[in-house]
């Protein structure tokens, strides 16, 4: 114990001495995270010759810092202009963008930065302390259990549908149908691809994401010629440090909320194959379920912004656990890290902490130090970043469209993806104009294919027996929790209305 503590202290101090690597990388990460289509994974790939040329420790610190900062950066355009930089930030604009429209973009950014940094920092500490236990999560969360986790996220459609049941369900169902396009996961038979080769691997997430959110938003901006309310415009034109501090205070006063939603991210992050998009939707759904004011979600509610941001940063530390303890990368970025680290002769798996403990602990320390430095360096920038929304819409709308179309192109380099983003933009615009919720469509597109994968896998394992869905104890506990989380808000709502009726 004493030896481990002394090793941790040494690694921490050594990591701090790499501030000259971490700080520039944080800014690089914010930029690549904020540009739709770019991500930590493809940036590490692009910079791989550089990463391989670095010594082990510098390369490790560089990759981890980039990973954390990119995750945080993805939330910035989601909040300011309704463009989630990655699928992991898809739930961020639900409440972040309405805050911006109200002229509280600066506060929203500060809240997002604090929630991301604290969520990331807290889960890094938990991961470090409870690594052997957390690594066991993947041993219990198999396809059946993951089906229920997916349903937690998908049940958000029902919450959205509560405002207009028929339209909400139609939107969600359309999303699930769109998500079913592509080859099936068992026999690789193409379905609904309409002959487009580019759809064989399913509907690509980034074009769907930027199309539904950003392109349709640009069409609305062109039509209405404004983003902000008059009051909001005034507030954004005169940014002040007070607004930043207000955001910081708002976030800090919800530290328990940051804590438990980031732990949701951590737990989902340690499951191989699960990711930030699942975590952020599940955290948002849970946050709404247990809120005393669920009706405020979607209108610029602070907790609705805190939940997805702290959860998707919780995933970041979670994905490192199976990588380091089991040698199984928890996500795409962790997989790239594995390749780079293997080049340096590091073998991951159970023996890592016996043979090279400084590497294992070093990755978590790099994460912790990155989050600490992010708090200090990024929060002051919210004052300047928020001014983006004051750019005249005549320039902003075309910028959003061109910027996002490039983003749609980047991940796979298909022109098809740009056309697809435009098509989703038109779908999103029509949906908005006719009162259908684009978020419900998007949840279906993102979580639908994952649900199908786990569902088909479970059925293949049971040779078609549907009772497999209720075959595990943990799965059954999760089923009960799902039913409770769906019924509870309705019961609470009914009780509240009854109380109001009685008191009046």
């Amino acid at each position: 114990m004493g030896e481990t503590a002394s090793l941790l202290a040494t690694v921490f101090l050594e990591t701090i001495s790499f501030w000259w690597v971490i700080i520039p990388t944080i800014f690089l990460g914010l930029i690549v995270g904020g540009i739709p289509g770019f991500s930590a994974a493809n940036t590490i790939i692009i910079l791989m010759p550089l990463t391989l040329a670095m010594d082990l420790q510098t390369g490790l610190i560089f990759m981890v810092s980039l990973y954390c900062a990119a995750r945080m950066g993805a939330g910035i355009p989601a909040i300011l202009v309704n463009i989630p930089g990655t699928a992991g930030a898809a739930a961020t604009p639900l409440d972040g963008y309405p805050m911006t429209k109200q002229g509280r973009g600066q506060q929203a950014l500060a809240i997002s930065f604090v929630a991301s940094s604290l969520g990331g920092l807290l889960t890094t500490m938990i991961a470090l302390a409870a690594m052997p236990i957390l690594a066991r999560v993947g041993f219990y969360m198999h396809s059946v259990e993951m089906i229920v986790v997916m349903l937690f996220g998908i049940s958000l459609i029902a919450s959205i549908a509560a405002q207009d049941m028929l339209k909400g369900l139609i939107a969600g169902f359309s999303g699930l149908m769109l998500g079913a396009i592509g080859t099936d996961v068992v026999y690789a038979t193409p379905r609904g691809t309409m002959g487009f080769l580019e759809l064989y691997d399913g509907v690509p997430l980034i074009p769907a994401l930027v199309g539904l959110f950003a392109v349709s938003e640009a069409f609305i901006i062109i039509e209405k010629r404004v983003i902000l309310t008059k009051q909001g415009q005034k507030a954004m034109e005169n940014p002040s440090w007070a607004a930043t501090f207000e955001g910081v205070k708002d976030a800090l006063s919800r530290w328990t909320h940051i804590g438990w939603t980031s732990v949701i991210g951590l737990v989902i992050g340690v499951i191989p194959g699960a990711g930030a998009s699942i975590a952020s939707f599940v955290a948002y759904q849970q946050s709404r379920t247990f809120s005393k004011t669920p009706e405020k979600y979607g209108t610029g509610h602070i907790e609705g912004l805190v939940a997805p941001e702290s959860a998707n940063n919780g995933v970041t530390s979670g994905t490192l656990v199976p990588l380091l303890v089991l040698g199984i990368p928890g996500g795409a970025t962790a997989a790239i890290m594995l390749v780079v680290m293997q080049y340096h002769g590091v073998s991951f798996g159970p023996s890592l902490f016996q043979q090279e403990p400084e590497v294992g602990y070093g990755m978590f320390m790099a994460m912790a130090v990155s989050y600490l430095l992010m708090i200090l360096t990024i929060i002051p920038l919210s004052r300047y970043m928020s001014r983006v929304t004051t750019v005249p819409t005549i320039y902003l709308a075309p910028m959003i469209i061109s910027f996002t179309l490039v983003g749609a192109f980047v991940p796979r380099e298909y022109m098809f993806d740009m056309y697809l983003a435009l098509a989703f933009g038109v779908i999103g615009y029509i949906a908005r104009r006719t009162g259908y919720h684009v978020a419900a469509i998007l949840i279906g597109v993102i979580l639908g294919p994952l649900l199908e994968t786990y569902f088909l896998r479970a059925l293949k394992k049971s040779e078609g027996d549907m009772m497999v869905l209720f075959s595990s104890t943990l799965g059954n506990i999760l089923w009960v929790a799902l039913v409770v989380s769906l019924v509870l808000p309705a019961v609470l709502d009914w009780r509240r209305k009854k109380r109001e009726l009685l008191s009046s």
Partner: protein
Amino acid sequence: MTKMKMNRRMLLGTGIAASAMTLATPGLLRASSFPDRNMKVYIPTREGGGADRNFRAFSSVWKTKLGVDFEPGFYPGASGRVGYEIYMGKAEPDAYNLIFGNMGPEVLNWAVQAPSFDVEDYFYFGRVDTDPGCAFVGAESSLQSIEDIIAEGKKRTLTVGTSRMAHPASIGILALGEATGASFNLIPLSGGKNTVAGAVTGEVDFSVLTSGSVIAAGDSVKTVLVFGENKVGEALDNAQNINDAFDLDLPEMLSSRAFGIHKAAADNHPDRFEKLVETFNATFEDPALMESYVAANGTPEYLNNGGVEECAQFVKDMLELGNRYKPLLTGA
């Protein structure tokens, strides 16, 4: 000396010839100085996997022979089908565009489901490695040997993780089931990393995969059977060859990564193709390749140079194997 008169026809003819020469010159120069730009390589799997690792190790040396860099593009999906369809449908057949695929599972695809292009329109010309498939369990599994697996498989159907249904290792385990009476249910887990994770976390009873990826997974897993010769001994836990262990006469269930090219590119640009083959072979003679391969956590015993003929034979064998096991691999 007779004075040459230039009439209108001659003037036009000379003009056309001069223009044609001018236009053709860059092309001629380019042909003579091939390659004058980076090579683009289509990889039909995700970044970060075995193909990525293998490609980077090989191309890091090959680029020094060819004088230009190799730019990978990853086109995963539909068990590798997307990458091939994109390569055949969209990449220019000019010898600057190559595909780096796994001749084992990816060719099995064609036997199971024909692609939209003619499979004769591309061919492999440079084999990098041959890697036998293997069966392995998670370190904490209650099944710790192939005997345990067979005994348990006679009592109940065991779930077997595989990276995709049409995989040589999938055929290996189905053949073992046929020979021993054990019952196996293949569960496709989409890629090597997920297949390892499936066995380690107990999502499936055990998994089958190319042995190079299993070696890279380290001590989280234990190999119990190899569908071919175990050239690496302890690295695969001294697991036995399936034919020796069960007195069978199965062909080796190999994965084999190789560079492929459009047939049209080789036919229309024989000089370019020749240069590719020549530099590919020179790469194998360079000791730096072994260093790079070992540094990338590859298994040096699996490095295995092969040319057009060896690759063609491999493809033929795979198609035959695929046709034989098609009903089991397609669920038909």
